[in-house]
């Protein structure tokens, strides 16, 4: 094992012979080459679609200075390492990996290509040439929770979720707290589909929740199936990642949307200037990474005002959705009154707040 690792390091040393800063090679070779690795097909809405939107924005903004390449549907396994290494070998100076599961592969390839900048979405491992970026998805969730709490008649909200990890739990909890801040009788029911992407199962989950009385449903999965299911039943839905209103104009109340273009533009500009450093950005409304899609005309004025106010506060950094006191489902205090949850605590969230009617499956 050791000898093999040495071999790889030697090989990496040969390919990365000079120790120029990141930018130098780009300037010598004309346009800077930027590679993107996507976990799913780009499609027309969802996680990967938003990243690709960001890529196209960046391409448009930088014009001839940049040349991008993307590879979609790369599974989070050994294939990912091969794809990432191939991008690095073919002269890409910046490589974005947009799925959590690429983390270990990016770390490994980053060590072999010290001159290449690796930027990983949603991960937590960093290195001399490996940075991370993520969005505060829960901020958008909070605003959509206000809409849901105001629009429900049955006081039951349905939530179709992928996997019980902190990122998803932050969303569920922010959504629940916001809905209950407007309507304390609301309860949120969660169904886990254990898949990021399975339109059939997502739809079944949404239909099950609606059969149980939910009249507003939302989802933390990648397809548009939940919005479509709500449209067919004449219920309301809240989209995720992208504005999904064209999949159900009547049902779609709003969506928590994610925007990566500005970040990509800034990162590539830094790389060209030679000033890029591996960072760990976790941006929200303030950075323009999280936004709210246009509200459905059915949403009344009172809640619109409230949303505008909180959105302004989020943008100004004056409001944090996870502000004390926060009680979990069993009544245990998780955050004291007047306190704001720090990022480390947020990223180890493993409970439901009060108001979630479902029980959390064990991991």
């Amino acid at each position, binding site marked *: 094992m050791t000898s093999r690792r040495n071999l790889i390091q030697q090989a990496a040393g040969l390919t990365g012979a000079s120790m120029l800063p990141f930018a130098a090679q780009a300037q010598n070779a004309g346009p800077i080459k930027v590679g993107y690795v996507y976990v799913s097909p780009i*499609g027309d809405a969802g996680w990967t679609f938003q990243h690709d939107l960001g890529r196209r924005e960046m391409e448009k903004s930088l014009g001839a200075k940049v040349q991008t390449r993307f590879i979609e549907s790369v599974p989070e396994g050994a294939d990912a390492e091969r794809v990432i290494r191939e991008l690095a070998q073919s002269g890409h100076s910046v490589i974005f990996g947009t799925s959590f599961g690429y983390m270990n592969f990016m770390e490994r390839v980053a060590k072999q290509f010290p001159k290449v900048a690796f930027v990983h979405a949603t991960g937590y491992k960093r290195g001399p040439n490996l940075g991370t970026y993520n969005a505060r998805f829960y901020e958008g969730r909070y605003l959509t929770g206000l809409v849901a709490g105001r629009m429900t008649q049955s006081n039951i909200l349905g939530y179709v979720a992928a996997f019980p990890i902190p990122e998803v739990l932050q969303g569920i909890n922010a959504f629940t707290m916001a809905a209950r801040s407007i309507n304390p009788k609301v309860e949120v029911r969660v169904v886990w589909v254990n898949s990021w992407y*399975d339109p059939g199962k997502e739809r079944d*989950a949404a239909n099950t929740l609606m059969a149980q009385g939910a009249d507003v449903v939302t989802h933390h999965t990648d397809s*548009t199936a939940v919005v479509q299911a709500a449209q067919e039943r004449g219920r309301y839905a809240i989209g995720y990642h992208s504005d999904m209103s064209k999949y159900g104009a009547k049902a779609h109340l709003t969506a928590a949307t994610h925007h990566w273009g500005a970040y990509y533009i800034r990162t590539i500009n830094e790389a060209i200037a030679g000033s890029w450093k591996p960072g760990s950005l976790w941006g929200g409304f303030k950075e323009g990474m999280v936004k709210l899609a246009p509200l459905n005309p059915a949403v009344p004025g009172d809640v619109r005002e409230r949303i505008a106010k909180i959105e302004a506060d989020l943008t100004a950094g004056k409001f944090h959705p996870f502000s004390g006191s926060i009680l979990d489902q069993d009544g245990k205090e998780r955050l004291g009154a007047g306190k704001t949850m720090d990022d480390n605590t947020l990223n180890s969230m493993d409970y439901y707040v009060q108001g979630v009617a*479902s029980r959390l*499956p*064990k991991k």
Partner: protein
Amino acid sequence: MAGIDLASALIAAAIFAGTPLLIVALGELITERSGVLNLGAEGMMAMGAIAGFAAAYHSGSAVLAVLAGALAGIACALIFGLLAISLLANQVACGLALSIFGVGLAAFVGKPYEALSLTAVPAWPLPVLSDIPLVGPALFQHPPIVYVSWLLLAAVIIFLHHTRAGLVLRAIGESPAVAHQSGYPVIAVRYLATIFGGAMAGVGGAFLSVFYTPLWAEGMVAGRGWIALALVVFATWRPARVLLGAYLFGGMLIAQLFVQGSGLEWDIPSQWLSALPYLTTIVVLVLISRRPELIRLNSPVSLGRVWRPDN
């Protein structure tokens, strides 16, 4: 009253979720009974799904969509037949290749359709029957394709066990050499059985994209073709048990979603929940089919073996 409504809604959802598995598995059952093992169901479903979606999108007709799905499935099955029946290639390898090829090709041709959505096909409540409490809304308020799947089941049972043609099919699956000596057209029958299997896989795919989701997206078949293949084996090639398995799978899928949403005390890891439909279906089918002599009796002896007339 609310409880009854909920129960019938859940049963209806279970049947709806099980229907594509039923259709695909019945097709595969006929194919396998002739001695041909076509593992390409996943790919044929994907092709049927995109063909059906495209047809429904351009024509607005669900009937045309189902036909287009069937044709796409038949086209895939013919490729498989050419390789595995005429050219005597290894059936397992050809089937796996067809799976991968079909999923990939469907993704490629389906690119322009990713953005689009269809309006759902409305249910056709059957007169009188749909008014029965509990049973009516659960069984008789579906889109017509669900009723067609029941007719299909009846047709497969009658064909296999009560017609001469069905006997010939089974004989060929048992021993193609003997059937050939007796003057039956082994190759032709195997082609027909494979084509039927392909058509049903295509219809099952079209069901997913036109009736079930209804949208087209890459990877939307999500392993259902493999589940259908497994159902045939665990149902020991008996059509009625395929129905049981398909609905059991659909039922467990819906039940676990329902229990999660209901807020009941729940102390099981979520991965177990997701595995539950698979486990239950396999366990139940294995239990009811556990007598080895019956399995031997029902499984086609020549399954997966290449055969040509001169050996």
